[in-house]
């Protein structure tokens, strides 16, 4: 980090460095028509209803803030979906902060809620054994690291992560030490992936900055109000950590061996996928105010960062943005995974469009980034909430610094969340009421998990709000669109992480990959959900398994979650045109 950055940052604000991305006027004078935003706002009945605490879901996040403006207090709060008891209902794990103030040590109160079905939840944290006696909570990743068919839980923290192995009886065991995956840094997001194709899920952990309370310093917002600092102030970006799964319940730290110390930043988000179509899973890291990394898997246990050359490290003119959450999605339905990253107010969220392995920072008046300049985005998820066959976008927003329009009298950092309905071809329209709820949610939102909590085929959502109650959002869109879901398992009934599914229904194709560990510090529903619109049959389902084998599965009837197991389909020749 050069010292100059600070200075530039300081007076850039004055000079006005922001970019607009709204209307598309054509004339030279400023008529009213020209200046109306192109991204028309679609008024709608609410898409979600907030579940009340009577459901049993009563999580209240605490950052432990004590007025000393410790940076971790501003970034905490992830959420994960995990069917830990394998009863078919997605359970919920919520990540609390705790306290980083040495004068007020308080352990985080992470919570695990068992889903009893029909919008009833019960807090089973204590009986399940999900306790973190120390550390400061950030996020979580769900994955079956021991391949026993039961999902395990990894919790990221400042000051020691925790791995909880699922005991298959409603309880977990803390196996952090045996497994060797503690990471005594400031970890944020994490993702399970099988980077070497040995069938065992490895673990990638994103770290933010080297931070201790002693490194804190006073920072100020407009006019001189005490506020949280930017990560740039600390000049201490941290490299990520990669654990290779030995297959015996333990991991080895392969960060150095894999070449991952060659590039690093203030890491927040991670998503994985085969971005260059070479058959191996790559990793993309969204960094806050430092260049992002695209770790291309070299198929020999090592990675090389090609983000700069491939065009997804920086914005279109070479400037790093404040990357928060990241997801990989095939937005243009061409089989190539695009990247979407949430950013700071004034930067706008970013869509890196994948053009056969290289990316462009695609800005269009009606793209998924339109309208995002006014907010600081964190959690994000694409999902077909209205089952019309096109992915929509939900973004959890919340400031990191004071300033701007006051949305809430109680919380100066609060912003509304946003919901954009997909129109196809990468085009979106904003849904009002804001965020799809009436009234809109105003909070300092961080983690977001999307999944089908009541198994009705309509995607629900959970939002973690800093120092506030979490919002459980029940999808109340109409039942018009049909849908289908898949749960993929490999030949040994293990999770098929990063397998890709392509379906064809009524002449339309859709692609999705299995990677629930993405967004911001969160873990999504591991099942794949496809909205189908008016289609009444899915004619074709192709699956490309992580080892490159492609199988076709016969026509599928919509309206249910279908298990798909490797080896049970018709194997296609290697030359099959994916």
């Amino acid at each position, binding site marked *: 980090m050069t*010292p*100059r950055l*600070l200075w530039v*940052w*300081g*007076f850039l*604000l*004055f*000079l*006005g*460095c922001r970019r*607009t*991305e*709204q209307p*598309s*006027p*054509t004339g*030279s004078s*400023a008529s009213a028509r*020209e*200046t109306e*935003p*192109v991204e028309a706002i679609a008024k709608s009945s609410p898409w979600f209803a907030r579940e009340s605490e009577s459901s049993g879901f009563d999580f209240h996040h605490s950052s432990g803030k004590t007025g000393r403006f410790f940076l971790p207090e501003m970034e905490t709060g992830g959420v994960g979906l995990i069917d830990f008891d394998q009863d078919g209902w997605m359970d919920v794990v919520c990540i609390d902060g705790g306290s980083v103030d040495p004068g007020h040590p308080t352990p985080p109160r992470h919570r695990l809620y068992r889903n009893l079905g029909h919008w009833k939840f019960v807090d089973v944290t204590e009986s399940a054994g999900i306790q973190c006696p120390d550390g400061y909570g950030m996020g979580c990743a769900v994955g079956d690291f021991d391949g026993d068919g039961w999902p395990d839980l990894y919790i990221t923290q400042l000051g020691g992560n925790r791995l909880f192995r699922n005991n298959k009886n409603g309880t977990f065991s803390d196996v952090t030490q045996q497994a060797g995956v503690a990471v005594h840094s400031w970890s944020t997001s994490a993702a399970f992936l099988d980077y070497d194709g040995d069938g065992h899920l490895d673990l990638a952990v994103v770290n933010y900055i080297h931070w*201790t309370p*002693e490194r804190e*310093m*006073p920072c*100020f*917002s*407009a*006019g*001189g*109000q005490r506020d949280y600092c930017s990560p740039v*102030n600390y*000049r*201490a970006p941290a490299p990520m950590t990669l654990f290779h799964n030995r297959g015996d319940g333990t991991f080895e730290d392969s960060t150095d061996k894999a070449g991952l*110390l*060659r*590039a*690093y930043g203030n890491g927040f988000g991670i998503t994985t996928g085969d971005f260059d179509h070479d058959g191996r899973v790559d990793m993309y890291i969204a960094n806050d105010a430092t*260049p992002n990394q695209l770790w291309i898997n070299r198929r020999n246990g090592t990675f090389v960062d090609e983000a*700069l*050359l491939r*065009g997804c*490290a*920086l914005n*279109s*003119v*070479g*400037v790093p943005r404040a990357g928060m959450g990241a997801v990989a999605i095939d937005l243009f339905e061409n089989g190539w995974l695009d990247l979407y990253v949430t950013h700071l*107010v*004034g930067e706008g969220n970013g869509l890196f469009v994948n053009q056969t392995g*290289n990316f*462009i920072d695609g*800005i269009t*008046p009606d793209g998924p980034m339109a309208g995002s*300049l*006014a907010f600081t985005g964190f959690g994000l998820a694409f999902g077909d909430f209205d089952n019309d066959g096109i992915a929509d976008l939900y973004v959890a927003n919340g400031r990191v610094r004071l300033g*701007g*329009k006051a949305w809430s009298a109680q919380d100066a950092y609060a912003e509304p969340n946003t919901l954009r309905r997909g129109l196809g071809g990468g085009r979106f329209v904003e849904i009002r009421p804001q965020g799809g709820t009436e009234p809109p949610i105003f909070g300092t939102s961080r983690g977001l998990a999307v999944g089908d909590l009541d198994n009705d085929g309509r995607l629900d959502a959970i939002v973690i709000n800093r120092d506030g109650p979490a919002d459980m959002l029940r999808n109340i869109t109409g039942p018009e669109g049909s849908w289908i879901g898949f749960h993929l398992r490999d030949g040994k009934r293990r999770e098929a992480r990063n397998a890709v599914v392509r379906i064809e229904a009524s002449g339309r194709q859709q692609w999705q990959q299995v990677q629930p560990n993405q967004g911001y510090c969160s873990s999504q529903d591991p099942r794949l959900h496809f909205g189908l619109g008016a289609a009444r049959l899915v004619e074709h389902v192709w699956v490309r398994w992580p080892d490159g084998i492609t199988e076709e599965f016969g026509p599928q009837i919509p309206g249910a979650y279908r298990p798909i197991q490797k080896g049970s389909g018709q194997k296609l020749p290697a030359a099959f045109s994916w």
Partner: protein
Amino acid sequence: MVGGLWYGTHVSSPPPPLVRPAAGVTLDSQVRGYLDELISEVERHPSDPDRRKNLGLAYAANGLWSEARETFLGLKSMVPQQPLAPMYAAVALQELSDEAGAWREFLQVTSSFPAFAPGWYRVGEAALRRGDHPKVEQAFERLMALAPREWRGPAGLGELRLSQGRLEEAQSLLEKAIHMDFSAKPAHYLLGQVYRNLGRTNEAQLALDLGSGENRLPMPDEWSEEAPGHMRLLPDQLAQAEELSERGQPEQAVQLLRHALPFHGEQPELLNGLAIASNRAGQSGEALAYVDRALQADPKSVAALVTRALVRARLGRFDAGRMDAEEALRLAPCLTQAHLAMAELWLSQDNDRKAISALEDALRCDPKNADIHVEIGGILWHNLGEKGSAMKHYQSAVSIHPAHAHAWSCLGQLQWETGDSIAARQTHEQLIRIAPGGRELAELESAMKAP
């Protein structure tokens, strides 16, 4: 100049209301003091647009954008023939996150002042971010006509051509922009993308590296140059002081920060900043006094501990300095700056091996820091005569940061000295590409002229 039409003049119409900071806003004491001064000035001379402008800039420079906007709008009503006031009112609107409103007002500026180049620049930039190709084209073509030496014109149009896939036109425009100003980083970055799309990977890598990492500064105008002078928030002043020190003007840095002392008294960050600047200015005694005060206020400030280690290095108090660095590392393991301070202490005692060891520790915390490789290379070569090892470090530096001119220059000098004239000439050619006319190139050429 259009912007200077009214400077020093007074207008006769009734002056607009004076804008004061909004009630309830907590203001930094130095900011408040400065604003009070400027408000008094405006009260004494309510019809003087220059004083209004200063107040508006002061609000903006300290993040009070609503007040800034109101002041610029008042100024616009006082001097309607002046384009900077409405343009800055629109900038304020952008900062207040009203993008649609700002766009409307930028268009109005170009409509009212069609010969005002910065207005077209703003419209062009905004249009690029909206995907409004016709407007981008119009704005940057106007900018090129009005300000033919301004690199942002061809760069903006080049960005449009790149997004349209018209690569050869984009290349030509971006090369033109770079020819106008080699330091135009965004143009290098855009050109790198063009090269990449043309399959010219090596050139792409270099251009992308040359162009990355710096914000695109808006086109300068008369007011933008004055803006930093109105900053009174402590972090901004500390950053300005650091910039002055980096530019070899530590005395000015000390002066700047001394002005903040009456307002921020025992603030450890200010005292630490003063200590750094004083130490760089050769006033190590004063520096020690400042940093001691900083550590009295916050004994666990790792930044101050590192500073005191460096101050003590300069004062010859090496053992005490090392204790400071060690304490900083205890409080904040993997603190690169503490390892660097440790290296400095060992170097001051001519203990090159231990200095290198400390620098290697720093590299473990900050492995992508090319400067550390250059530093190690320098010690190995000049102090220890280990040219082969030094070469490896210089090569690592340019591999991490292909546009690191100093590293290339050192590499070329070492190649020349070791008799590898072919490699040295290739390095020379590389340096011409990345830093034409720069000090680093001159140093290499000077070395290559030596017998």
